[in-house]
């Protein structure tokens, strides 16, 4: 008997003619995520398994796999020859720590002599004999004993199904640029969009000396946490201080945030163009703060029109976002109390429904191009 980890793919099966590409990318991503853990990926009759691994590293392997986009679930399984006695022997020594269970048999190998339904009943009664307190519940079971009889002559028996990240394999959708602030939302936005197959680079705007070195470190930590899911991030650190000082000096205070956001979009678009990134991703969420009204977003959208702006959190409640941040491990860093650039020069009454012509009028008091050029020249690039 060997221990294996059985992998289940998600929507890849909907992909028709492109399925090969998606599958190949997913396998390559899995291999990449397990590169430090010796093991093999085997394919057998349409199923993928992780085999030949050190049992001591099983939990580490599973932890990595649950973060690979494109996998919906996995199961630890025992691989045994498809022999009735051997299967029965194995099932009879299973310990099940729950009150209810069911057995489901999948007989891909039609030469196996007992029909699925009959074998389910047979195995179920063996388990019941061994575990007196256990009850069968076909609908609301706590444990499912899955017996998968494959055409390769082996049967895979598992009792657990571990959920994975789901979504689409990373990089199948290209690469985008995430505006990473240091707050709770933007790392979650990055996670959500990466889950749809988009690889990530990120840009962070900081305002030293108004914000601290610690605030920068915080963003690096957040990007690092995201690499659990996205493998690698190029982080562009953009010094935003002079732009903010100039806006503060020359423009009407209530437009501070709107104009700042537009500068960020313009800089992001330049980076997209320079580094062949296909979209801008933000953590904006309708109605959360003044810059997140429809009017504000419209005005922000017009700052550049070359690249689409994805806002994967647009319809989420803060609580939902916080839960995801907790799940992906970014929350504890996001809530560290360092100021970010958006809290510097914060006006008392930011405009909630800005009008484009008025914003452009205010903005034109500045030498926009040279400010952007100056910011781009100072960008520090970190590979994370």
């Amino acid at each position, binding site marked *: 008997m060997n221990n294996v980890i059985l992998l289940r793919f998600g929507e890849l099966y909907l992909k028709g003619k492109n399925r090969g590409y998606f599958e190949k990318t997913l396998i390559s991503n899995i291999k990449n995520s397990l590169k430090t853990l010796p093991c093999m990926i085997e394919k057998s009759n349409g199923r993928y398994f992780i085999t030949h691994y050190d049992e001591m590293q099983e939990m580490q392997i599973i932890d990595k796999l649950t973060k690979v986009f494109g996998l919906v679930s996995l199961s630890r399984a025992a691989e045994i020859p498809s022999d009735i006695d051997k299967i029965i022997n194995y099932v009879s020594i299973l310990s099940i720590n729950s009150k209810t269970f069911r057995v489901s048999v999948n007989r891909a190998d039609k030469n196996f002599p007992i029909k699925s339904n009959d074998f389910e009943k047979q195995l179920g009664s063996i388990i019941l004999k061994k575990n007196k307190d256990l009850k069968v519940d076909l609908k609301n079971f706590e444990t499912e004993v899955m017996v998968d009889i494959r055409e390769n002559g082996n049967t895979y028996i598992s009792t657990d199904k571990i959920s994975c990240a789901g979504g689409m394999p990373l990089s199948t959708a290209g690469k985008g640029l995430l505006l990473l602030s240091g707050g709770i939302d933007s790392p979650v936005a990055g996670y959500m969009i990466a889950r749809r197959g988009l690889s990530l680079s990120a840009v962070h705007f900081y305002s030293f000396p108004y*914000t601290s070195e610690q605030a920068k470190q915080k963003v690096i930590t957040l990007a690092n946490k995201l690499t659990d899911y996205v493998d690698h991030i190029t982080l562009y650190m953009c010094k935003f201080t002079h732009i903010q000082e100039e806006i503060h000096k020359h423009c009407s205070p209530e437009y501070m945030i709107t104009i700042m956001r537009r500068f960020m979009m313009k800089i992001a678009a330049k980076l997209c163009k320079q580094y062949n990134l296909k979209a801008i991703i933000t953590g904006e969420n309708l109605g959360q703060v003044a810059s997140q009204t429809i009017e504000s977003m419209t005005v922000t959208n017009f700052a550049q029109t070359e690249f689409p702006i994805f806002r994967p959190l647009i319809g989420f409640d803060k609580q939902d976002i916080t839960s995801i941040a907790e799940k992906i491990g970014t929350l504890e860093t996001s809530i560290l109390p360092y100021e970010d650039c958006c809290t510097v020069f914060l006006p008392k009454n930011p405009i909630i429904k800005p009008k484009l012509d008025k914003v452009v009028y205010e903005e034109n008091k500045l030498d926009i191009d040279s400010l952007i050029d100056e910011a781009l020249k100072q960008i520090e690039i970190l590979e994370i």
Partner: protein
Amino acid sequence: MIYLDNASTTQMSTKALEVYKKYAIDDFYNPSAIYDRAVKISNDIHSAKEKVKNVLGAPYGEVIFTSTATEANNLAIFGCLRSNFKKVVLSSAEHASVYNVGKKLEERGIDVEYCPLQQNGEIDYNELENILDENTNLISIIHVSNETGAINDLKKINEIRNRKCKNAIFHADGVQAFSKVNVNLSYFGVDMYTISSHKIFGPKGIACLYVNKGINLKPQIFGGGQEDNIRSGTENVPAIMAFMSAIDEIGDINKNYEYVNKLRNTFISNLKDTAVKINESKNNSPYILSLCFSGVNGETLVHMMEQNQIYISTGSACSSHRSGNRILSAMSLPDNLVKGCVRISFSKHNTIDEITFASKTLKDCYLKLINTLR
């Protein structure tokens, strides 16, 4: 580089480092072992304790080495805690390592009162007189405020203690006082006193608690029975001995005091015509200068100074990660001033030239900032 955050930590002296290396490499033996080389180390630790007692002016008690002053403060309070304790009195100026112990005691149902501060940062002695009563079992009051440098009059506090609750135990956190102002525990009448090595050019990871005769502390860490069974764990011999070396290097406290006072006065005089409030008492340690600038964020000033390679802080390092400042607020400073506070902390190694340059730079930074924000 100009380092003016000496209340946060200091650079270890070369001599202390040499001693550290000697006891880490040549004399590395475990003082609990029974062969001659180890016994010598055990004797060295014994001598170290005698040295600490002498320098604190308290020859009769015990010295317990701990890993940090935070641990020593915790040991002082939790160690003397008894089930019949009714009331513990702290001050609002306490360092987090005493203040947060107070919060824990409150959770355990003990009446913990915090003596308010005067606007100059010292405790309000009249209020202390009112707070102390026959139910008070323990008093812990900081000797020199780590935020402002205000020196609390420990002798006066002891007199109040003797009048109001003579059986109460009196602990003082002397981390910012030791080696900087005159300390004589017998004269002050203090029962327990905490000092730390890394504030006086010694290594990090070592501090100690002086405990007067007659005070029975309960151990908080159990094990092999080191430190008279009060604090188990193999002694950090290299750090203890390097700490002693730093003590040997203190020099003339009064002379240092005068010199640093000159540095502080120079700093202050270079800030004239600036909208700055100096948080100080008549009886203030010259080693700490707490300044509140109006209309700006202290953190921004710290970073602007950092751009000039001058290192100051927004407040004590143990509180600078939190918003606001508990101690300055307790001195009745309004929030807008608290926000604009920075702390400059000097050492005897700073030069007048450094101070002149740093103070002028701070003034320039402030003026530039206020001009930008206008």
